[in-house]
């Protein structure tokens, strides 16, 4: 078995594990983490692909793609976590003071 294939297959495995996690959990943070794992799996496949021709230097294109992919993944995780945090705060406020409008932050419909 080629070494690159090992990496690629582990990537696919990570991808699958992440997907299962994404759709089997209810908790938002767990789902964000699962999507992170899914993303890492894909990126691992891409890194492995750079080495699929064993001789010569590795293919630079997948590396460039992986860099971009990491940036995208970081931003989407950040966005997800930020939303989840604010939601948790709003929910906490709503449960602590029931008469308090959970919408107070917005300005009506």
């Amino acid at each position, binding site marked *: 078995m080629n070494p690159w294939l090992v990496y*690629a297959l582990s990537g*696919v495995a990570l*991808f699958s594990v*992440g*997907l299962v996690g*994404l*759709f089997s959990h209810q908790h*938002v943070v767990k*789902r*964000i983490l699962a*999507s992170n794992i*899914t*993303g890492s*799996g*894909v990126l691992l*496949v*891409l890194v492995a*692909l750079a080495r*699929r021709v064993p001789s010569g230097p590795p*293919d630079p*294109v*997948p590396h460039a*793609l992986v860099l*971009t*992919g990491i940036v*995208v993944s970081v*931003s*989407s995780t950040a*966005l*997800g976590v930020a*939303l*989840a945090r*604010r*939601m948790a705060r*709003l*929910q906490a406020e*709503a449960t602590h003071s029931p008469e308090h409008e*959970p*919408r107070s*932050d*917005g*300005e*009506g*419909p």
Partner: protein
Amino acid sequence: MTSVAALMAWPVILPLLGAVLALLVGRPGVRLVAGVASVATLMASSRLAWEVAHQGVLRQSIGGWGAPLGIEWRADGLAALMLLTIALVGPLISVHALDHLGDREDREFLPLWLFVWCALNALVLSDDAFNLYVTLELTTLAAVALIAVRRDLPGLDAGLRYLLFALPGSLCYLLGIALLYGAHATLDVGTLAQRVQPGPVTWVAAGLVTVGLCLKTPLFPLHVWLPPTYTGAPTPVTALLSALISKGSFYVLLRLWLEVFAPVLDARVGQLLGVLGAVAVLWGSFLALSQTQLKRVVAYSSVAQIGYLFLVFPMATSGARAGAIYLVVSHAAAKASMFVAVGNIHQAVGITALGGVQGLAYRMPFTFLAMALGGISLIGIPPSGGFIAKWLLLNESIGTRQWWWALVLLAGSLLAAAYVFRILRGSFLPLPAEVKVRSIPLRNELAPLALALIALVLGLVPWFPLELLAIGASR
């Protein structure tokens, strides 16, 4: 500067500039900046469409690298038509958003919408599979921020839900693209089209790409996130999601399928997508019929209307392609007008149930007219863009001897008629005395009307868009 590079760059750069500037200037100037950026982008998009109509397909390599290495951009008739649709429909929705959202949201909504616009325009012009991934993600991220713009619980919940379905969608797509790159060492769509061969790698890649994009669009049975997201988001954002953003992923799917995958896949895969589309039409319409909330009826109708789009895959002819694109465009206008009209009703009477329509024809005649014209286009009754799309698809289904799709189209129209008239018929009833009507600004009434008129005009002069979208249809 009228080089091809500039022609293609302006529709992407201008909304981006607008978005950044709007973020910087803050409250006092945000509307002005956004307005100027919108007009400028509309002009740039029209200019590009004009050139495509007269010169044919335009191509450009970004950064000066050639096709296999660098990123290719390509403007064909379809891309030009999409640019025009976004440039006309989006700003009209955002006009409505000005008064629908509060002052503070204004400051954030407008730049975010300009980001979405920039990402969508880049997506439409990309001819590189990985670049398409990046633009898809940019659209998603900006859209999530838009959904949560009000920072209230329903909005945040809807935004997270959307993000957590869109992310795996994009990642499936990315894995598919990675496989394709591994097998064919190219990301350029045109080169891919020449190199793909039938085989397991292609099939798995096509499957991943298709599932990922179906999840984002969404196609039945992956639509579960749509109704809660569409109802939780502020109405103008829902309009953007349904009219434009969901069309972005369908656009990618349509191009990759018709240009890359269709020749190397078993015809039965296309049939499967068609069957899912057909189920979406019937199931979505049925659910729309059983809703009691105005916004939910319109939201479920999107499930059904997206279903029609997938009938293009089993037919896979140029006529069916034209029909699906025509539906993308006319649905964008019609559905946006419906959502915006629903927003007006909420704003004016504060009723979210179907009964809020009662007396609408007297209270807000323009909103009513917009709703009626938009509804007619959804059903597919002439004169409307929806009818033209239905006509084209019907013709192809008979022409390719797949008459069962014709049955789906016709049954779908009848169901659509049922839920549209369920909304509309109350509008002639006398206004209930106990309902207090808040007056809403005239421009909020005119925005949906303008959107509905776009759907109407699409039904009156279909030859122009049809000629445009035929440019560069086959590579």
